């Protein structure tokens, strides 16, 4: 298989304009003859479905929640980047492009990133016009903040609920199209497989989660906007329902999966409190603007924070990174926290956190100012831990948060299966080996509002025959396979819950393919995952039937796919014998910092499925850096 990224010719600033002109258009009268399936209603899916409905296509949109408004995007807190330069502080499209390529540790595709920075500007216009209540200054103009260590203020935000407000904007645009009959919405409906006809993506098989009915839907093209796979770790900041099923099923049908080992561990989450823990809660990164991170200098120091004198504290980020201090990038801060806890300096009842201390900030600015800035976060922290962060320092620890890897797509966001497009966190496209704060929302909306609706037209213009019948043998065969898998899950009737298997899997990958990885550990993880998968199919217990609302069955199906996917993630981590961004191979470091190897690894690793338990085949897309000079990413 030859990977063709289809990057348009010409200078980087002109590529997208030129491409938009070169692409074929679908005649307005013909648009309603084309059906497009969109799986997912998060920022990427809702914006894509709404825009394509508005353009006149027949759109069918699916989500597993009871309403499209509940997609996981709703939980994003901090903000969305855009190169508006409203603060007149020297931002530009080029600077946002540059920061994103550098932040991604030179493992992303320049042309895609440049386009992302270009359309970022339009996103803010669109959202403001929809009524998204962004933060404003007293003069009525939009406010910005600096986020995630950026040296310009380019982040737009709506208090600590930016994802919610952006998603409600997209959801409302989608609702309008649903009300007008241009988009048909299927809630509580899970895509369980992709259907190919003559090698092209032409539909999906879904299960109605209330009735258990398994049915097919056909279309001219299929778009996956199904989000990321952080829940492979069991404990993550993602919503409980987030999963890899849709992407994994597409992968099994021939779509290559790119860079699955690139996962982002967010440094500021509330540490685990016990074995029953069901998820981890993110504390917005913005807290690092005023909080100071420290641990006791001596391992095993069990004194309460207030009794540890200044001279016996280690403000390790300020010490190691004097210029960035507490604002060092996510991957770097996370690794340093792990290091401190591994050395026995962890704090809290389980010695599994580090302090994020606001004492100095409260002393300098007053409690009211801190409350104004972070009041809702402080309340949330207190609600969860029972501790008052105005009086004692917060405890934080890194947690899986975002996945840069995903289905491989070309410049048109089309996967290696013709007619299958992938948008949002589900694709691998823009963030390389590490994503910058406030860039996921930007990418989801860029893909959905401004890129896909153009590029999919170029494909649809070639599809003259219309969607195939959903009664054809290709669909019936996939339906049969889906029913068979459901039955198989119910038939095992073993002794352990799917939840138990999910937790066990989480522990394996968190230990051996989490913040730090090494060859021996990864090999061991591969073996443990295979064994666990074997055990799952012998010993899982799924009560109830497939003919009604059965949440345990839903979860078991997702765990089954995670058990296959996890193996590929570790395989990819093993193959990438360098450190870059969120992928830290212990064998490759200088003074504890990631050591990239551009000579041998400046490529995208795209994997082809060869069967469960079979070695997947690696394909490489070489990355060319013509605009941003390859350099060591230093934050010292």
């Amino acid at each position, binding site marked *: 298989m030859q990977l063709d990224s289809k990057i348009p010719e010409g200078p980087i600033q002109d590529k997208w304009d030129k491409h938009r002109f070169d692409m074929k258009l679908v005649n307005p009268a013909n648009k309603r003859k084309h059906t497009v399936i969109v799986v997912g209603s998060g920022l990427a899916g809702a914006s894509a479905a709404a825009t394509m409905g508005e353009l006149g296509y027949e759109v069918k949109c699916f989500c597993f929640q009871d309403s499209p408004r509940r997609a996981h995007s709703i939980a994003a807190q901090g903000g969305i980047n855009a190169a508006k330069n409203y603060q007149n502080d020297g931002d530009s499209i080029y600077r946002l492009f540059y920061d994103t390529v550098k932040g991604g540790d030179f493992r992303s595709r320049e042309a895609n990133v440049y386009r992302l920075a270009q359309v970022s500007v339009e996103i803010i216009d669109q959202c*403001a016009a929809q009524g998204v209540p962004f933060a404003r200054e007293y003069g009525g103009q*939009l406010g910005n903040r600096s986020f995630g260590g950026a040296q310009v203020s380019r982040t737009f935000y*709506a208090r600590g609920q930016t994802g919610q407000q952006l998603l409600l904007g997209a959801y409302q645009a989608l609702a309008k199209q649903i009300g007008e009959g241009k988009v048909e919405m299927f809630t509580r409906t899970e895509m369980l497989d992709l259907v190919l006809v003559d090698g092209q993506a032409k539909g999906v098989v879904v299960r109605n989660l209330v009735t258990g009915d398994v049915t097919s839907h056909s279309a001219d093209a299929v778009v996956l906007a199904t989000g990321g796979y952080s829940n492979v770790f069991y404990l993550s900041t993602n919503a*409980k329902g987030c999963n890899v099923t849709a992407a994994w099923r597409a992968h099994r049908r021939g779509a290559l999966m790119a860079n699955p080992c690139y996962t982002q561990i967010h440094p500021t989450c509330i540490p685990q409190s016990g074995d*029953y823990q069901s*998820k981890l809660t993110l504390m917005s990164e913005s807290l690092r603007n005023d909080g100071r991170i420290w641990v006791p200098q001596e391992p095993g120091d069990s004194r309460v924070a207030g009794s540890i004198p200044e001279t016996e504290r280690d403000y390790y980020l300020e010490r190691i990174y004097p210029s960035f201090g507490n604002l060092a990038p996510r991957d770097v801060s996370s690794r340093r926290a792990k290091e401190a806890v591994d050395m026995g300096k962890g704090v809290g009842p389980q010695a599994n956190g580090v302090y994020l201390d606001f004492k100095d900030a409260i002393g300098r600015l007053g409690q009211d100012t801190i409350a104004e800035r972070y009041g809702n976060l402080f309340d949330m922290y207190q609600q969860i831990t029972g501790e008052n962060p105005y009086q004692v320092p917060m405890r934080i620890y890194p947690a899986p948060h975002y996945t840069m890897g995903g289905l491989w797509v070309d410049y048109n966001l089309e996967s290696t299966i013709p007619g299958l497009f992938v948008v949002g966190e589900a694709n691998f496209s823009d963030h390389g080996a590490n994503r910058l704060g406030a860039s996921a929302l930007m990418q989801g909306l860029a893909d959905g509002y401004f890129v896909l*609706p153009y590029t999919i037209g170029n494909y649809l213009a070639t599809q003259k025959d219309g969607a195939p019948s959903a009664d054809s043998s290709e669909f019936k065969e996939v339906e049969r396979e889906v029913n068979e898998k459901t039955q198989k899950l119910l038939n095992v009737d073993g*002794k352990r*819950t799917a939840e138990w298997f999910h937790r066990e899997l989480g522990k394996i990958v968190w230990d051996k393919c989490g913040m730090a990885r090494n060859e021996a550990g990864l090999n061991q993880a591969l073996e443990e995952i295979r064994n666990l998968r074997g055990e799952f199919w012998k010993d899982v217990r799924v009560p109830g039937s497939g003919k009604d609302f059965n949440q345990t069955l839903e979860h078991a199906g997702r765990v089954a796919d995670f058990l296959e996917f996890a193996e590929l993630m570790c395989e990819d981590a093993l193959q990438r014998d360098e450190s870059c961004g969120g992928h830290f191979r212990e064998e490759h470091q200088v003074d504890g910092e990631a050591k990239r190897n551009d000579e041998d690894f400046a490529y995208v690793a795209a994997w082809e499925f060869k069967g469960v338990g079979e070695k997947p085949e690696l394909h490489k897309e070489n990355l060319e850096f013509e605009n941003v000079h390859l350099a060591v990413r230093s934050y010292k």
Partner: protein
Amino acid sequence: MKITLQVWRQANANDEGRFETYHQGGVNEEMSFLEMLDVLNESLINEGKEPVAFESDCREGICGACGMVISGSPHGPKKAITTCQLHMRSFSDGEEIWLEPWRAKAFPVVKDLVVDRSSLDRIVESGGFISVRTGSAPDANAIAVPKSNADRAFDAAACIGCGACVAACPNASAMLFTSAKVAHLGLLPQGQPERFSRAVSMVATMDQQGFGYCTNHGACQTACPKEISIDLIAMLNRDLAIGALSGA
């Protein structure tokens, strides 16, 4: 700690439903309320029984998926939080806790504690938006919005669509939910062109979907995890009156 749970079990919309009693030991104060139910469900599965169906997704109070009536109060005894944000430290050892689904004509039960709230989506589909074609928007700073209006619009936009207001209301009205959207959009200059027709059409859909009328009880405001104020209902009524008069 130990607690006794009286849980509403109902196989589907046609089933009559009944309370079942579970004695739950090994509860830890640090657990969230839903984690306590996870533990119950694990043990039910291990005993070969069907787990209790309840909804949740984000588990941090923002998606609006979770929600049940806990000993008579939607989202439980604490103010301004969702069910998923409730922790066991808010209960005492030996307490008996009653769990029921949202009860409203417009929210048929799907199973146990899960209800169908798609009627709320129908209300939004009939007008809860600003019509703006993708790509046709002016520069975001071309429309200045006074900060106080933006802040008030935000307060209204914070609604998570959980339906607790409906469950709390003796008439099972969705006025608080509807007014939150009408106020959010109506407070912004971008929302003016459709302001009155939006109010008329969303309220008409609310009626069609089987929600009741508002008789100013205020129970909705007390139950709302996002502290949406009933003052917004007054705003909605004003827009509705203007809309009706002008034939919007």
